[in-house]
């Protein structure tokens, strides 16, 4: 059971995340928590939620990175970076599992945990280079993104709602869901058109989820005639006069 499917499934459901337009609002993480608190892996336990040291299980986390410009004279940028399970083709979290609780589905490639079999040894979370798995200390089992398996196949929902909660809620359309095993699917075409890429290909996990890079911006060259990049003059370094020095002291308190 914890051996991977003998061949890569024809259907590989996954997400395509557009880093160009993600605004870092965390709505995907919040709606993920909301849906999954009542879904397949429910509950997503929080510990000490209103106390001094709250922690809890989340399947989706949004990091924000600062990326310096590749060339002198160009602006750097801030990139909001949502991260959840990538449903890898060569998922190391599956093969290390001693019990068969961690598995990859042959029919659509979704990686899931059978909570009735998991012994809570945590080895799968050690094996995942992306930090996709979080341990629920209350339940004593490992939990992870289910790609909303209980939502995307739910015939009680209208067809347009049968997408993962994070995709449904994204206010800017930065998240796309579909079959990445089908080269003619919308998501596959999007990946091809925008140069979608894998995170950490050197870890050889062959993730299904793809990331679309931020588009190139036509920045004005910030260099002046002498070739140095213009910068704002720090106000605190040349303070003249008694009054400004007094203001500086006041503000520095």
């Amino acid at each position, binding site marked *: 059971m914890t051996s991977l499917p003998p061949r890569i499934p024809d259907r590989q459901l996954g997400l395509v995340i557009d880093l160009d337009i993600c605004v870092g609002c965390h709505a995907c993480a919040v709606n993920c928590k909301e849906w999954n608190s009542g879904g397949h892996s429910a509950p997503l336990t929080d510990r000490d939620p209103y106390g001094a040291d709250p*922690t809890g299980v989340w399947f989706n986390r949004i990091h*924000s990175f600062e990326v310096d410009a590749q060339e002198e004279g160009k602006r750097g940028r801030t990139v909001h970076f949502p991260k959840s399970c990538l449903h890898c083709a060569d998922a190391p979290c599956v093969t290390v599992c001693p019990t068969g609780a961690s598995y990859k589905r042959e029919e659509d490639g979704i990686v899931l945990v059978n909570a009735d079999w998991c*012994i*809570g040894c945590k080895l799968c979370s050690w094996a995942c280079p992306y930090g996709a798995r979080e341990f629920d200390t209350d339940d004593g089992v490992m939990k992870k993104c289910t790609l909303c398996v209980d939502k995307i196949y739910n015939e009680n929902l209208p067809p347009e709602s049968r997408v993962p909660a994070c995709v449904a809620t994204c206010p800017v359309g930065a998240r796309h869901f579909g079959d990445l095993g089908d080269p003619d699917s919308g998501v596959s075409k999007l990946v091809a058109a925008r140069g979608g890429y894998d*995170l950490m290909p050197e*870890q050889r996990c062959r993730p299904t989820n793809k990331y679309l890079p931020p588009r190139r911006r036509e920045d004005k060259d910030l260099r002046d005639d002498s070739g140095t990049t213009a910068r704002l003059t720090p106000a605190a370094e040349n303070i003249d006069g008694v009054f400004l020095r007094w203001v500086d002291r006041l503000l520095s308190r």
Partner: protein
Amino acid sequence: MHPAFSVIFFTTASGAGYGLLFLLCLLGAAGRFPSDPWFGVIAFGLAFGLVSAGLLSSTFHLGHPERAWRAFTQWRSSWLSREGIAAIVTYVPTGVFAAAAILLGRTEGIFAAVAIVGALSCAVTVYCTAKIYASLRAIPRWTSAWVVPGYLLLGLATGALLLTFLTHVFGAAQRSIDSLTFAAFAAAALVKTSYWRSMLATSGESTAASATGLGRPGLVRLLDAPHTESNYLLQEMGYRVARRHADRLRIIAGLLLFAVPLASTLGTTILGPGTTAVFVAGISVLSASIGVLIERWLFFAEARHTVTLYYGENTA
């Protein structure tokens, strides 16, 4: 990586236990098992006690220990599962040999063959333990080629030291056992220092740049973490020990785990059997026990996980 005491105790205690069991089996197969039945009772008791206490301890950190039997099912892909099976299988030949040596006083013929199978299964079990860690690509420092020999040799050396102590206590000291212990510690010291040197000098292929795909290394920095408080990932995988503290602990581990046992076994080899030798070997066992716990603590505490690349680290 978070250095959990249950796993530190498990790997060190079962390592020493399997090392002792391995040597007791080989001693039997070579026809040099001490004839005093009480030696057999105490030595096998200690070996099985260490192994069993270690295995029990490893189940303490499980979320659902009552389902631990399920861990015997996935031997096709999982080193943890293979280790569990090997650990249980090892009880059979070693148990049969122990019973024969203690109750029947027989270690020859068929029992010698059983002893060799027992010794091999001890080695296989420790090999599986080491492979659990060595096969995790997400923790680059553990993928070092020195990890597996380190586990095998430290198990052998700590087990051999226990055997040296016991043979001196029972007046059954053999110069060859003392020399073997010396050699095992010398080899373990060599392998472990090689691991430390290579581990500190290298970091994994992955960087914050490859983790995000956002640019060349050095250009990508974490600006805002996804959460203000800690989480499971940071508690389990984000453990960091200050280099200064680690270096001090490494020196202490080197003294207690390698220098003291090397000096003591050299001493007992020269001194020959006697009360002084028993005392020296006893001190050495105590020293190596503390030393190996520090060594194993460092093994976990100094290991870095690639997930930390998403939390502000540039290399793992």
